[in-house]
């Protein structure tokens, strides 16, 4: 009223433009709303999304082979798989396995590869115990040549190249990287040792083995490198380097620390480095090509192996093939899980529909009473209900006793109703029935009884009135109930385990087995992922056919 000529922005009471002030208020409100749902959001992310993502990742993850045996994997890359790998591969394996067994990681790899080929587990375990001895011959021989090889300090000086020598930082950081991968940890800080550049040119294997040793001693044993006696593998590496005539020539002009004892060792006769024989002596399975094939096949960091296994297939050298018939099990189990879940869903519809109808059409007081009867088992422990079915259904159980007493069944031929598919279907139908009745009931309650009366008054028979008027309106309830029951059934575990015997178990029982007993989490994750995909596909198909908007959980 006062000053209409002012065309500037509308101001709020505190003088700021109204728009900004409004936005601020809204933002605060949004933040408040977000803060309100934040606990739920965080909970869903942490407890739901993250584990699923982790599970999906586990089903393809396979870094353990490359992390534990990096050099062997490298050597095997071009191996043709026909004949036993060459000595160089065995040497790579020796140095890999030595470090892995010091870190006690080799048995993990053994159990991982044992999923693919029986026997790898003990192969790694027994050889892991022997790798120390394999290098001992060289240690003894070198110490025989010069007692100075026994001194930790001598080794330290020799490998670091002495004060002020050029150093080879890269070699050390490579070895630290290798240790980080092996231990899945991150290390930083000064090892207290850097290999000399000159010595690592002349003795590449020794410098590498000693650097790995130094990194291990510093980061894992938390000791001082210069005070620790080197591993047997370092002696073996030196013997290996000295086999090269080039090394001997290079040593002639080398004048770093330890040059004289190295020359002494080069001049002497050392036992030949024959890791192939040593490994095969330790465990003759190393001479079997199959085991090498497994290491080669499963060396990439990601694998489809678990998924193939989950659909009864396997990787062979000739490509992907079906497993032997006597090892195929998951196909049977997936089909059975689908079939039985559908049977359970249909049984629930058949039993639940009339109950829901009665509940919806009774006066409220009686309906409530009946509702309690529906909910009572729902509130009872799952285990109790399942065990109760055991008592009911077993051969010396209540139902058989009654049948025998009535003379309907002879005492010798009591019915087998448990430890098979029948038992599982009966028990699970009973357990899942409330999930069918409740959505049906809430939908049926909203259907006005006058529609049926109107249909009848227009001349429809009770059946036609039901079929054309009542039933179509109750379909959303059936849909909601079916989705609930089917999805719950497909992942059920306890009931089939207890009453399913051998023919009534589900895929989830195998998943549980692989999680808790065989520890093959990769396979369990692959099976779980497939199950998840199947449920999503069915949900999508349901949406296409019936339409998800037609699903109602209530009014």
């Amino acid at each position, binding site marked *: 009223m006062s000053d209409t000529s002012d065309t500037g922005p509308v101001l709020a009471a505190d003088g700021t433009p109204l728009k900004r002030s409004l936005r601020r208020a809204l933002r605060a409100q949004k933040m408040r709303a977000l803060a309100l749902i934040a606990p739920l959001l965080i909970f869903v992310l942490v407890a739901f999304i993250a584990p699923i993502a982790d599970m999906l990742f586990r089903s393809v993850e396979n870094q353990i082979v490359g992390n534990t045996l990096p050099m062997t994997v490298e050597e095997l890359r071009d191996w043709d798989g026909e004949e036993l790998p060459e000595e160089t591969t065995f040497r790579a394996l020796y140095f890999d396995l030595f470090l892995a067994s010091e870190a*006690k*990681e080799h*048995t*993990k790899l*053994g*159990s991982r590869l*044992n*999923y693919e080929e*029986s*026997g*790898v*587990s*003990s192969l790694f*375990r027994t050889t892991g115990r022997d790798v120390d001895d394999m290098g001992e011959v060289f240690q003894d021989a070198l110490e025989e040549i010069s007692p100075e090889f026994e001194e930790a300090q001598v080794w330290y000086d020799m490998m670091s190249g002495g004060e002020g020598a050029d150093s080879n930082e890269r070699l050390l950081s490579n070895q630290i990287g290798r240790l980080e991968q092996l*231990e*899945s*940890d991150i290390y930083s800080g000064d090892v207290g040792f850097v290999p000399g550049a000159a010595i690592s040119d002349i003795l590449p294997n020794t410098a590498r083995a000693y650097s790995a040793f130094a990194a291990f001693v510093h*980061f*894992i*044993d*938390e000791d001082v490198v210069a005070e620790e006696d080197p591993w047997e593998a370092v002696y073996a590496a030196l013997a290996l380097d000295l086999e090269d005539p080039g090394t001997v020539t290079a040593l002639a002009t080398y004048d770093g620390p330890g040059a004289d004892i190295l020359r002494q060792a080069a001049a002497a006769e050392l036992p030949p480095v024959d890791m192939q024989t040593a490994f095969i002596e330790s465990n003759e399975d190393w001479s079997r090509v199959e085991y090498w094939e497994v290491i080669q096949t499963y060396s990439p960091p990601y694998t489809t192996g678990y998924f193939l296994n989950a659909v009864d297939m396997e990787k062979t050298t000739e490509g992907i093939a079906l497993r032997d018939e*006597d*090892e*195929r*099990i998951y196909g*049977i*189990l997936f089909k*059975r899980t689908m079939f039985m879940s559908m049977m359970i869903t249909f049984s629930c519809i058949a039993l639940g529909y009339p109950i829901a109808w009665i509940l919806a059409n009774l006066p409220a007081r009686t309906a409530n009473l009946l509702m309690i009867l529906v909910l009572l088992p729902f509130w009872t422990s799952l285990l109790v209900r399942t065990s109760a079915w055991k008592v009911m259904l*077993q*051969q*010396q*159980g209540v139902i058989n006793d009654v049948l025998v007493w009535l003379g309907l069944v002879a005492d010798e031929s009591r019915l087998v109703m448990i*430890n098979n598919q029948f038992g599982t279907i009966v028990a699970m139908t009973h357990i899942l029935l409330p999930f069918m009745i409740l959505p049906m009931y809430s939908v049926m309650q909203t259907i006005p009884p006058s529609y049926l009366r109107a249909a009848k008054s227009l001349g429809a028979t009770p059946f036609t009135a039901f079929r054309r008027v009542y039933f179509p309106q109750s379909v959303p309830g059936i849909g909601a109930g079916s989705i609930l029951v089917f999805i719950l059934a497909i992942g059920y575990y306890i009931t089939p*385990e207890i009453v399913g*015997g*051998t*023919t009534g*178990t589900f895929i989830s029982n*195998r998943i549980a087995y692989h*999680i*808790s*007993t*065989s*520890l*093959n*989490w990769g396979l369990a994750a692959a099976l779980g992922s497939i199950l998840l995909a199947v449920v999503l596909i069915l949900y999508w198909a349901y949406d296409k056919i019936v339409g998800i908007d037609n699903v109602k959980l209530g009014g």
Partner: protein
Amino acid sequence: MKLTKTLLATTALTVAAGASATAQEMADSMTLVSWGGAYQESQQKAYVEPYLANNPGVSATWDESSAEAVAKLRAMNEAGNVTWDLVDVVASDAMRLCDEGLAMELDHDEVLAAAPDGTDASDDFGDLIVSDCFVPQIVYSTTFGYRTDMVPEGTEPPSSICDVFDLETYPGKRSLQKRPIDNMEWALYCDGVAKDEIYDVLGTDEGVDRALAKLDTIKDQVVWWSAGAETPQLLADGEVFLGSTYNGRLFSAIAEQDQPIGMMWDMQSFDLDGWIVPAGLPEDRLARVMDFLKFATDTQRLADQAAYISYGPARESSAPLVGKHAELGIEMAPHMPTDPANATNVHIYDYEWWADNRDDLDAKFQAWLAQ
């Protein structure tokens, strides 16, 4: 992973410190993991209560998770938060935990008490130390019980493992464990394979087929169990005529519940149960648990345990000390799987062999079951 390293360092320290470990700071609570039921009760009475009486201010909590111990320890280790201090597992699980680096390697002579006559712990336990991480407690066996009132008239009660496969003489259902271990060996043995050749035969595809073919002859009469309590229940209900389970379960059904059940010890399968210490414990908890472990596995404590449950003590020096049942007052020795009268023909199952072949045979066994 970081924890493992600290642990390795601290272990070295504690082990080196040896006897002076008691001087260290010790945690005043422990979480022990066991199987629940009568077995855990026997541990509580024989070791935990006396230990707590000697060490006032210390408390012990039980977690009944031994059946899933391997999976749970792996998960705890991945999460970097190991909440257990001492875990009771069967020998094969101990081997796997050791392989996976989830259990701590122990020097048995250093950390365990010597026998009263001075014999080193490693000699006293002998071959039962099947893994560097494993401290054996008891020897149990998987063996058979049968309903005495269901033995057909005019026939002797079953006395041989092969009676399990003899449906003509001994009709009726049998309950067997839902896993290949033991069942495959028994099947081959009853198919005429000599005892010392069983694993050689089972190592071939034909051998596996042969074992499954033998099991096929009784397949439709078998109820497969997965929990140790199932067979005693099935026997009590008269659902099965005979079934395999752990001998202690049968003992309690017979001696404590007076069920009409008889024992059949032929080819009982020996197995071990014992402690492992999880890898990655902080120093104070480790010191406490080592102190407890030394006490709980000494000669007297292992012998005491046999007064509550019919499992044989793992120490040789404990055997002569086994007395009477604490409540029933019956002599326990004749109920032990290791009693000479019961152990005339035993099956010693090969841990190493099964560790290698379990995945493969299990796939075949499960596929066979599902068909």
